[in-house]
């Protein structure tokens, strides 16, 4: 059951808002959990990170847009991964007989000239051929 007003809001909530709030909540819960499990106080953490306790409170209170750098520092001090990004696969698995091409763009800039050439390389992955086209 949901109220009609809520139903309308949920149906109009952009995906990016959902992702942002979910990530933020997950992060805050995880950090609080690690602090509790390891018996670390906010003051301990502030000392370790050479910051004021009030600044740490802001971080944990959500009054901070976590940057990758601040998350990395927090992860290092807490000794736990705070975010996990699934690495992209390096290998391509194609169905037999199917041909795919990868386009790479290489720019050559000549000295003292504004114009430049752009080379488009078409690589046939299945057969390892490379065909270049310069424009």
């Amino acid at each position, binding site marked *: 059951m949901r109220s009609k007003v809520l139903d309308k809001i949920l149906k109009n909530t952009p995906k990016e808002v959902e992702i942002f709030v979910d990530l933020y909540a997950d992060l805050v819960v995880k950090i609080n959990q690690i602090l509790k499990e390891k018996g670390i106080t906010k003051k301990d953490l502030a000392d370790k990170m050479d910051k004021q306790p009030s600044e740490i*409170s802001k971080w944990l209170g959500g009054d901070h847009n976590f940057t990758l750098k601040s998350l990395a520092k927090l992860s290092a001090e807490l000794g736990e991964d705070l975010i996990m990004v699934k690495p992209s696969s390096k290998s391509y698995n194609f169905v037999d007989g199917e041909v795919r091409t990868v386009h790479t763009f290489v720019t050559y800039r000549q000295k003292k000239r504004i114009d430049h050439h752009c080379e488009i390389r078409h690589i046939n992955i299945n057969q390892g051929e490379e065909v270049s086209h310069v424009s």
Partner: protein
Amino acid sequence: MNTFAIELWYDEGNMCTFYTVRYVNEVDENLSETDKFFDKYANQDHIYYEQSLQLVRLITESIGNRYGATNDFFDRVENNAQALPPKPKKWVEEIKDLGINFPLRIFCYRVNEQIVVLFNGGIKDAVTAQESELSMRFQEASLFAKKIEKAFTDGIIEISNDGRYINDFNNTEEIII
């Protein structure tokens, strides 16, 4: 305080059920206090439109579906500082954790980690506590919380066996207090 009904607001999450309150002495179409709050702020023309959507997501997904009403998401409000006797045993709380500087506050009464009664709220502004609209909403929320707590104490309402719902002695859907 006028008579009000406790009614379900959202129970589709796996972890927590949300109730709200609605005055019953007004017209039947009257919105609940929580719907009034979101009807006002979750409006595309409002400057805090996006923040109100964030608050809805935090309530329904983070608390309602993933974690329940844990301490991570609530701020105890020091209502004794606002001289509001008699004090409820359990303080009125604010949903938090979208930032200390997050502009919107919504008040609630946390029955347990699986049941939360949401009230109204407002914009956390710089105006003194006595003057701000948020302060009035807080005082109203305190009275709602006090009456709900008394209803539990008097046995007028109780928590269901699974801990997810509030029942009254008649087992009616709309609980009038």
